[in-house]
C-alpha cells in the first residue's frame, strides 16, 4: 500500500460489504456477521443487494456498523470482502481510499488487480477448505464460515457471540455445530497468525442496541396482519412481497393452529394470478372476513379493475404493496417508491384510495394491524405501502408492542337483532353524515337486510339505477367518506429544526432511515430544516399548514416523477414552486450522503451567497460559509 495514504482507523463506525455469488451459501455467514456485532451491543444497518436469480449471478451484503444507530446507508465501503471474481474490478474500485480489501489469496493475482491506496488482506480460503474438507459442497459452504472466522479476528468481533449464534441455530444438531465451530477457528487462527489484528477497523462492545429487535418489514407486516385479525390471505408470488405471505403462513402456523384438532383459524390461498388474489380478498371481505393480499407494482396494475369495484361497491380489502424498481418488470430485486400514483388513484373512473406509509418494520406491524380496522371502518381498500428496502431487509427497530385491550373495529355492520328491531337498512344510506353506510353480512336474516352488490350504479337502497342524480349522490357520499378517512389515518410527524427556519423537508417511508442522519449532518453544516414525515394518504391538513408556513420545502422520495410532490400539489392545492424535489431512483436505497449533498447544493442555490450568520430574505435557510464542503 502507498505509504502516503493513511489507513482508515474507525471503531464501531464503518461499512463492510460482502461481494458473493448467488447460491453459494454466503447469506447465512453474512447474517451471522451482522448479528454477532448486534450481540456485542453495537447497532448495524444491513442490506442484501441481490439479483433476480437463484444461482450464479452477483449478490452483495452491506453491513454498516454504526454505534450512532443510523439505519440508512451511508454510501461508500471501508472493507470489501471480495468473494466474486466476476465483480472484482467494480468491487475493488468501490473501496474508500485508505480502506481494506479482504480476498481469497489461493490463486495469485497480478498487482494490476489491486489498488495502491488500500490495504489488501489475502487469506487462502480455498486452500484451507480443500485441505480440511473432502466433500465439494462442504468446501464451498465452509469457505463462508472460514472468512467469517478471519473477519472476527481482523475486526475484533468476539468469537463467543458467533459460537452462541451457532448453538441457537444448530440446537440438537451437534455435528453441524462442531463443524461450523471448527471452520470458524480455522479462519480466525489463520488471521491471528498472519496479520496484526485488529486492523484499523474494529468493533468494541457497547450497550447501544438496547431492547431493539432485528426484523424485516415483510415479517413484521405479516405479524401485523395476524394481530389485525386477518383470516383470509390470497396472493400470487412476486418479489419482493412473497416473503410477506410466507411469513403470514409461518406466524399463523404458530399462533392460529388449534392445538387439539390441528385445524387452522385462517385460510391462505396461492392464487393463479393477482386478479384472482384480489378477487378472493374482495369476496372474503364482502362475506365478513378480514382479508388481504400482498403484491408489488405489476400486481397492482393487474388488480386495477377489481380495485375500482372494491371502491365503488365499498368492500373492505387490505393490500400490502412492497414496491420495487418499475415500470414493467423493471428492477424486480431493487427498491423504489414508485407506486404512489398507481395506488392512490387505482382503477378507471373517479377513485381515491387510502394509503398507509410505514417507515420501518415496527410501523409495518402497526399499520399492518391498523389497516384491517380502517378497511372495515371505511369499507374500502387500504394500501400499506412498503418497499423492498423495508420489506426484505432486516432492520434494527423498536420492539413490537400490542395493547391487549384493543378490540377489532368491525365498522358499521347491521346485525339480525338490529334488523328485527326495525332499523332502516339502506346499504348506501349515509345515516351518520360521515359518508359511511351500514352493511350486512350475507346470511344474516331470513327476510331483511339482503342486498345486491354490484359495480353498476345503484341508489341508496342498493337498487340498480341509471339515474344521473342517484349516481352523483353516491359519488359525493364516497367523497365525504374520503374526508372521514383523513381523520382516521395516522397523522404526519412534525419535528422542528434546532433553530427557527423557513425551510422544511417532507418525506415518507424508507427514506426516513437516511433522512434522520442527513438532517443531523445538515444541521452540523448549519442548514436547518423543519421536518414533516407523511404517514398516510389522504393528506392531513397539518401538511398544508406545514408547506404554507415555510418558504421552501424539499420533498425527498425514491422515484423519477416526484409522485409525492404530484399528489401534494394535486390534493392540497399547493403552489408547486414552493416544493423542491430530491429524487433517488437507481434501485438502491437512498443514502445519507446523497440527501445531504442534494439538499446542501439546492440550499446554496436558494441561499445565494453562503456567508456566516447572514439570513437571506426569501430563503430562511441559514448557512454558514466555509463549513459546507
Amino acid at each position, binding site marked *: 500500500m502507498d505509504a502516503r495514504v493513511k489507513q482508515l482507523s474507525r471503531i464501531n463506525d464503518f461499512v463492510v460489504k460482502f461481494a458473493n455469488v448467488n447460491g453459494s451459501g454466503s447469506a447465512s455467514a453474512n447474517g451471522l456477521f451482522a448479528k454477532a456485532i448486534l450481540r456485542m451491543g453495537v447497532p448495524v444497518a444491513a442490506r442484501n443487494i441481490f439479483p433476480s436469480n437463484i444461482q450464479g449471478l452477483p449478490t452483495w451484503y452491506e453491513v454498516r456498523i454504526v454505534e450512532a444507530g443510523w439505519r440508512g446507508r451511508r454510501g461508500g465501503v471501508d472493507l470489501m470482502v471480495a468473494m466474486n471474481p466476476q465483480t472484482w474490478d467494480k468491487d475493488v474500485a468501490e473501496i474508500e481510499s485508505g480502506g481494506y480489501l479482504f480476498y481469497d489469496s489461493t490463486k495469485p493475482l497480478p498487482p494490476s488487480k489491486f489498488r495502491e491506496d488500500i490495504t489488501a488482506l489475502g487469506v487462502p480460503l480455498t486452500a484451507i477448505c480443500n485441505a480440511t474438507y473432502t466433500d465439494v459442497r462442504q468446501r464451498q459452504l465452509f469457505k463462508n464460515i472460514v472468512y467469517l472466522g478471519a473477519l472476527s479476528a481482523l475486526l475484533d468481533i468476539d468469537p463467543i457471540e458467533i459460537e452462541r449464534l451457532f448453538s441457537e441455530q444448530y440446537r440438537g444438531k451437534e455435528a453441524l455445530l462442531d463443524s461450523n465451530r471448527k471452520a470458524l477457528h480455522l479462519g480466525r487462527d489463520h488471521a491471528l497468525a498472519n496479520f496484526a489484528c485488529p486492523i484499523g477497523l474494529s468493533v468494541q462492545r457497547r450497550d447501544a442496541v438496547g431492547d431493539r429487535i432485528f426484523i424485516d418489514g415483510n415479517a413484521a407486516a405479516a405479524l401485523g396482519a395476524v394481530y389485525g385479525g386477518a383470516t383470509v390471505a390470497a396472493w400470487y408470488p412476486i418479489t419482493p412481497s412473497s416473503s410477506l405471505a410466507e411469513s403470514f403462513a409461518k406466524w399463523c402456523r404458530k399462533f392460529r393452529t388449534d392445538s387439539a384438532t390441528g385445524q387452522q383459524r385462517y385460510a391462505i390461498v396461492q392464487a393463479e394470478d393477482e386478479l384472482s388474489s384480489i378477487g378472493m380478498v374482495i369476496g*372474503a*371481505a*364482502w362475506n365478513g*372476513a378480514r382479508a388481504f393480499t400482498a403484491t408489488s407494482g405489476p400486481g397492482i396494475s393487474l388488480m386495477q379493475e*377489481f380495485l375500482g369495484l372494491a371502491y365503488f361497491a365499498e368492500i373492505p380489502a387490505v393490500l400490502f404493496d412492497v414496491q420495487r424498481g418499475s415500470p414493467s418488470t423493471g428492477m424486480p430485486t431493487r427498491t423504489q417508491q414508485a407506486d404512489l400514483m398507481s395506488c392512490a388513484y387505482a382503477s378507471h373512473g373517479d377513485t381515491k384510495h387510502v394509503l398507509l406509509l410505514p417507515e420501518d418494520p415496527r410501523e409495518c406491524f402497526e399499520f399492518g394491524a391498523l389497516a384491517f380496522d380502517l378497511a372495515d371502518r371505511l369499507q374500502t381498500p387500504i394500501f400499506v405501502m412498503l418497499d423492498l428496502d423495508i420489506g426484505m431487509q432486516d432492520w434494527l427497530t423498536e420492539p413490537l408492542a400490542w395493547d391487549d385491550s384493543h378490540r377489532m373495529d368491525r365498522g358499521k355492520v347491521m346485525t339480525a337483532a338490529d334488523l328485527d328491531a326495525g332499523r332502516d337498512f339502506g346499504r348506501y344510506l349515509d345515516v351518520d353524515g360521515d359518508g359511511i353506510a351500514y352493511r350486512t353480512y*350475507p346470511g344474516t336474516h331470513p327476510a331483511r337486510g*339482503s*342486498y*345486491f352488490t354490484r359495480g353498476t350504479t345503484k341508489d341508496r337502497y342498493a337498487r340498480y339505477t341509471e339515474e344521473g342524480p342517484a349516481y352523483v349522490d353516491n359519488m359525493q357520499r364516497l367523497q365525504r367518506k374520503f374526508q372521514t378517512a383523513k381523520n382516521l389515518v395516522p397523522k404526519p410527524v412534525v419535528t422542528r429544526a434546532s433553530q427557527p427556519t423557513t425551510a422544511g423537508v417532507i418525506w415518507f417511508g424508507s427514506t426516513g432511515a437516511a433522512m434522520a442522519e442527513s438532517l443531523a449532518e445538515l444541521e452540523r453544516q448549519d442548514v436547518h430544516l423543519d421536518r414533516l414525515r407523511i404517514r398516510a394518504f389522504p393528506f392531513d391538513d397539518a401538511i398544508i399548514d406545514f408547506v404554507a408556513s415555510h418558504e421552501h420545502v424539499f420533498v425527498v422520495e425514491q422515484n423519477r416523477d416526484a409522485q409525492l410532490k404530484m399528489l401534494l400539489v394535486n390534493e392540497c392545492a399547493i403552489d408547486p414552486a414552493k416544493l423542491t424535489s430530491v429524487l433517488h431512483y437507481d434501485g438502491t436505497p437512498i443514502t445519507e450522503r446523497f440527501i445531504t449533498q442534494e439538499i446542501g447544493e439546492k440550499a446554496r442555490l436558494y441561499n445565494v451567497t453562503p456567508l456566516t450568520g447572514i439570513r437571506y430574505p426569501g430563503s430562511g435557510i441559514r448557512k454558514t460559509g466555509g463549513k459546507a464542503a
Partner: protein
Amino acid sequence: MTYLAKPKIHHPGLPKNALGYTRRDYEGAISTLCAGCGHDSISAAIIQAFYELDVAPHRVAKLSGIGCSSKTPTYFLGNSHGFNSVHGRMPSVLTGAALANRDLIYLGVSGDGDSASIGLGQFAHVLRRNVNMVYIVENNGVYGLTKGQFSATADKGSKSKRGATNSDEPIDLVLLALALGATFVARGFSGDKTQLVPLIKAAVAHRGAAFIDVVSPCVAFNNHPGSTKSYDYVREHNEAVNRLDFMPERAPITTEYPEGAVREVVLHDGGVVRLHKLDASYDPSDKVGAMAYLEEHRARGEVVTGLLYVDADSADMHAALRTVDMPLNTLNDPDLVPGNAALAAVNASLR
C-alpha cells in the same frame, strides 16, 4: 332499464315447503331479459330446486360476473345476498366468499363469454381447488349484451344472425371441467326443466365444485337456422345419457326398472341421486369413459346432457386447507389475536 319489484302479497293457499316458505319466497325481481330467453327458464329451475330442497333463501349467496347470464341472480332468491362482480372473475370472488363462511351455499352464475373467454383462467382454477359451490354456465354461444358476437363456445361452422361463419374451434366447458378435476359435471338444456331441476338439486347437495353447463338459447341473437345453440337444434340433437331424481335421503325403489337401468349415487350429506339410464353403457363414475363419450358425440353434432360425472367422496377446499369448523368470519379477538405476551416472546427471538 328500471328496477321492478314484484308484489309481496302471497296467495294464502300457496303450498309451503318444510321450512314454511312458498315458491314465491325464492323468487327475485322481474326479469329484464328478452321474452323467451333461455336464462329465464334457468332462473325458474333454480327457484324450483331451492324451494324443493327446503333451503332457507338467506343461507344462499349468489355470485356472478358480467353479461346477460350474470344479471339473472337479481331475478331469483331475492332474500339472498348477491354479488354481481367483474367480467370473468366471479370464481375468485366466490372462492373468497366461501373461504370466509363455509356454512352458506354458494351459487355462481356465469355465461359462456364470462367463463370460456375472459374468465377461462378463473374457471379452471376454481374447479381445481374444488370449492364447495354450484357453478352454472348459461351457455348460448353468443355475446348478447353487446349484440351478437360469437363467443368461445360457438361451434366451428355455426352461423351468426348476420350470416358470418365461425371459424374457430369451440371450447367445450364440460370436457374442460372434467380435465380440470371438477367433481360433479353435468350438462342441461334450459328447455328441459324436468332434467335441469334435479341436476341443480344434486349439485347443491354435492360437496365440492359442481359444474353445470346449461345450453340456453339466445332468442335475440342465436336462435336462427345455422346456429347450434338454437331451441330447434338442441331439441333435435339432445342426447341425454340419463334422467335423475334427487332425494334428500334414500327411499325404497317402488317402480320396477329393467336390470342395470337404475343407478344410485349417495352424496356426502346422505342425499341420493337416482339415475335412470337412457344409455345403458354410460357410467358417470368413469371420467375417461365420459370424456371419450363426449368427444364421440360432439363429433356427430350431438349435445350430450345429463349427470356426466360425479365423485361423491372428494375433499373440498376447506378440507384441503384444514380450516376450523366455525366460519372464519365469526372468529373474534380471542381466537385471532395472540396478545402482547406472545409478542414479547417474538421480540425476544429477534435479538
